[in-house]
């Protein structure tokens, strides 16, 4: 009876387009509660739905005129694009989690007791006056200045490194997404 399936599919190719409902009435990865009656009956799980899906039956029948039919090809392409969307969502959520984790770690990590933050409210001139007029420890070999300079250098490196890693990750993710879109276009 399989050689007759292309005839049946042909009935759904009209003058004003192709009706895909013969293969799948909703074109989703899995059935929703109120839609996609395909393969729904008592005690029917989603894995059964996938096994009984016309596309898997067509694959099992392995008969060239059926799986080469336009209706089947379009359905497979659409399903593949659905998978691309899923992958894109996965990557996007991974990226969001990464950003949240990084920010929270940066915010929650303790600042050292003596840091350049302590002097952030002073101008340079005020700081110089403060250092000179320190009665207890008047500018002992420019330790604070050196510290400020050092901290600045170190933090600039950290800042640059963070930007660099973010750039690399985003670059690779866009590469993956781009690749998926090219594959879906040319298959």
């Amino acid at each position, binding site marked *: 009876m399989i050689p*007759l399936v292309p005839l049946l599919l042909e009935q759904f190719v009209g003058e004003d387009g192709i009706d895909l409902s013969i293969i799948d009435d909703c074109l989703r990865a899995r059935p929703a509660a109120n839609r996609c*009656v395909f393969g729904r*009956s008592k005690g*029917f799980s989603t894995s059964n739905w996938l096994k*009984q899906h*016309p596309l898997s039956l067509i694959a099992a029948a392995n008969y060239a005129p059926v799986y080469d039919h336009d209706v089947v090809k379009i359905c497979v392409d659409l399903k593949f694009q659905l998978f691309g969307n899923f992958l894109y969502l996965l990557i996007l959520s991974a990226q969001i989690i990464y950003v949240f984790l990084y920010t929270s770690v940066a915010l929650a990590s303790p600042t050292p007791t003596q840091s350049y933050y302590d002097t952030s409210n002073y101008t340079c001139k005020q700081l110089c006056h403060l250092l000179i007029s320190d009665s207890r420890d008047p500018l002992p070999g420019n330790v604070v200045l050196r510290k400020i300079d050092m901290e600045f250098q170190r933090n600039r490196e950290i800042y640059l490194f963070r930007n660099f890693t973010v750039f690399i990750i985003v670059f690779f993710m866009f590469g993956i997404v781009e690749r998926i879109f090219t594959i879906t276009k040319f298959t």
Partner: protein
Amino acid sequence: MEKNVNGKTPFVIAIEKGSLKCIKYILSSKWLHRNVDIEEFINSDSLKTTIDKDQLDIVSFFVSDISRLAAIIRIKINANDRIYNVLEYSIALKKPDFVRIFISVRIPGDERELYRSYKYFLKHYNLAYSGSNYDQTPIQRMLTMVTKELSIRMKLFFFPSVFLD
């Protein structure tokens, strides 16, 4: 349409005997068209008889007319206490010739309503056959149904002694 003692109408007997001429004569009567509904003739009894008795030319005559086709796709045949349409019934009986006739009807472009109901007929989601666990649409039935010839060939291949004795 009066029935005889066996519950058969003249129309059903004509189908049983395979008399296409007689059927054409009955259906072409203008008086009948005016006074009797087409569904009095094209009903589950007559279609079931046509499929059971392998009357291919009669069924191709039935689907050749739009009003008859509209009646055919509404027919529900009761088999083993399950209700099937004619397509599902002929798939169940493993009669590919009838399946071919039912799925390859060409409907004119202006008959949109009929085309819609015909498509619904082709993808009718219905109860499983007795051997299967899941409800199915015709395409699923066709893809899972092993044809009679193939199964006989396989039996002949694996158990030749049964056939040769």
